[in-house]
């Protein structure tokens, strides 16, 4: 059972995540978009969307800090477990609440604003459900373990398990002992990663960071790739 949950499932999710993105990028560049609904409604979006997105960016940074960076590294630079924990819990809880609040506003908007609701696909609804559950579980795990309970040092169990996946030497035993809320959070996150490439969440991978460095006006030549027409097949290149 623990092999299935903590070895097979992560690899399935990761494979789907990577291959799914590759496939979608090749097959469906045109569908790769945020599908913004700002045209329909702007007032609620202007509160909810930044709240959610900035919140989740902090959450993402927190996860990188907690899962990717080994405990020994932070201790080596002199950050004690207690100090790390306070920062992580405070920042994590604030960011988590902002994210959840933002998401709540966005979902409320999606349900109550007519045009936005009509533009919502079944795909979107599934994605919202999984995303919402993951965020709620994550926040619940943090709050239950650290604020209500006596604290839980996931950096000795969950983080090594997480890293072990990427070293292809998975250690399911580490995860099997984690509190159930953390386990559920990890599982729902795996589901989220598995469906990620097939939802509108793909827009995250093409966050336009390059905009900061590229020249303002882009020139492109027609020869490069004729728009709208399929590229010439092998053996049928036009003679020049």
């Amino acid at each position: 059972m623990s092999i299935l949950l903590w070895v097979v499932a992560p690899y399935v999710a990761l494979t789907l995540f990577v291959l799914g993105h590759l496939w979608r990028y090749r097959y469906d560049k045109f569908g790769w978009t945020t599908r913004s609904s700002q045209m329909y409604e702007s007032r609620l979006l202007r509160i909810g969307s930044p709240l959610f997105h900035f919140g989740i960016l902090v959450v993402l940074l927190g996860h990188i800090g907690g899962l990717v960076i080994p405990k020994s590294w932070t201790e080596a630079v002199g950050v004690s477990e207690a100090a790390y924990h306070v920062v992580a819990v405070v920042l994590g809880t604030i960011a988590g609440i902002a994210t959840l609040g933002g998401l709540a506003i966005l979902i409320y908007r999606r349900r109550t604003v007519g045009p936005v609701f009509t533009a919502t696909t079944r795909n979107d609804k599934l994605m919202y459900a999984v995303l919402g559950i993951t965020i709620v579980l994550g926040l619940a795990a943090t709050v239950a373990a650290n604020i209500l309970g006596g604290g839980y040092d996931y950096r000795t169990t969950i983080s090594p398990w997480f890293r072990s996946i990427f070293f292809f030497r998975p250690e399911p035993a580490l995860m099997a002992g984690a509190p159930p809320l953390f386990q559920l959070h990890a599982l729902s996150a795996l589901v989220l990663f598995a469906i990620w490439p097939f939802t509108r969440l793909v827009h995250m991978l093409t966050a336009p960071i390059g905009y900061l460095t590229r020249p303002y006006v882009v020139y492109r030549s027609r020869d490069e790739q004729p728009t709208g027409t399929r590229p010439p097949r092998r053996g049928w290149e036009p003679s020049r």
Partner: protein
Amino acid sequence: MRIMAQLAMVMNLDKCIGCHTCSVTCKQAWTNRAGTEYVWFNNVETRPGQGYPRTYQDQDKWKGGWELNRRGRLKLKAGGRLRKLLTIFANPLMPSINDYYEPWTYDYDRLFSAPATEDTPVARPRSLISGEPTKITWSANWDDDLAGGPELAPADPVLRKLSDQVKLEFEQAFMFYLPRICEHCLNPSCVASCPSGAMYKRAEDGIVLVDQDRCRGWRMCVTGCPYKKVYFNHRTGKAEKCTFCYPRVEVGLPTVCSETCVGRLRYIGIILYDADKVAEAASVPDEKDLYEAQKGVLLDPHDPEVIAGARAAGIPEDWLEAARSSPIHKLIFEFGVALPLHPEYRTMPMVWYIPPLSPVVDILAKTGHDGEDAGNLFGAIDALRIPVEYLAELFTAGDPGPVKGVLNRLAAMRSYMRRINLGQTPDESIATAVGMNGRQIEDMHRLLALAPYDERYVIPKAHAEQGHQLEELATQCSLDYEGGPGMNGPFGEASGMPSPVAVENFHALRERQAGDELDDANELRGRVNLLNWDGKGTPEGLFPKRNGDGS
């Protein structure tokens, strides 16, 4: 010097009768699809009026285009790169659907399905956005022909810039039509605003396009364009804009709006410009100098040095030939009658306008004067401040000088040609009064009044060696791509591999015209494109499949 070629347009506003044929044919060709119901790549607005979208010219509100920063360098008015990325999650400066208008259809089914009653059943309007019954309160041309004038027109941002006096004299109304398409600017602020780099200016002909495969729907281009000519397709989540009908101009045909223009008021041609000078010209400190600065970027195609430079830059010989006989170059330089729209946005727009003399002539005629007498016209252009100032706000950042110059030339042409028509001796003094000679006036008259087709449109074809790849020629089988047209993938409308625009439009248009319900995209798969069917045999897919019996 980096010489580039640009396809540009001039519109002669005196000849626009406001019939909206250009808008309608453009819509039929390009935006007759779900998600673009509210989109008019070409629209005709009555001036004074609020325009489409409402009050788009109010850049204090919409922050489109460029401005100079404290160091005198160009910066996007809506904020630089970092600011754009920080506001990417909710663009604070994006117009909502209500700033355009909420598109609607009618509940036609009611006419048939209503039970028999005393009263005639009514097809009630239904919003195409929410699907709910709606009340029609605005559209792209709500204030057409000054409709609702006293209430609506004062909100015109151009009118508000004029002195108070204008509002009081509004009773002596003047009006004219302003057809607008994308300006295909030399310094496009929409391209500069696009975070994904999906928008680009085509190096060969300067057409500004959106790469639909790279657009991620960040919506910054909509904000960046001061003319609000980039639109957000709310169904596909991608930006769309006027394409200058590139599949047509590539094979030497004029754009749909030009081809179908009833008044023959549009001119298309090539101009050469120096791309290295664009930024410098766009950042001259005084807005009123921008018109001259913009002219300074354009090059004389007869200059041997320019020709040599253009050859070195790889511009083909037939394009240089076209640049030499370009009506655009003639109208801007030789006759000096074309002016750019809102040069103060600093985007270097490439759709130019010949301002209308008709408001002046109308007022003259109304007061019982001879509206074709040179002396009367020159006097009136000097005296009638309101129309001239209004035109100056549109075309020269408020400087009435160049507008008066253009109007004088048009007036001179009017009275000079009248003498010829009446069999009187031509009066050379009329021509010299506006710095021209009789020969030039007659040439200008030929181009503006007779407007022969091949003098109006001097469009060189794209390189012959690329012909195989061009859309409209379709020497490849048009259905030879994966998926087929208008497919409904799992990720929303038209996901999957792209289909040639021409094919997609051909099918979609026919389906919409002939169908009696929303088209079923699957129906179109595997159908033969009659445009390039050679007429032999009955290829599979020539006839539609029957529903139901599977034959």
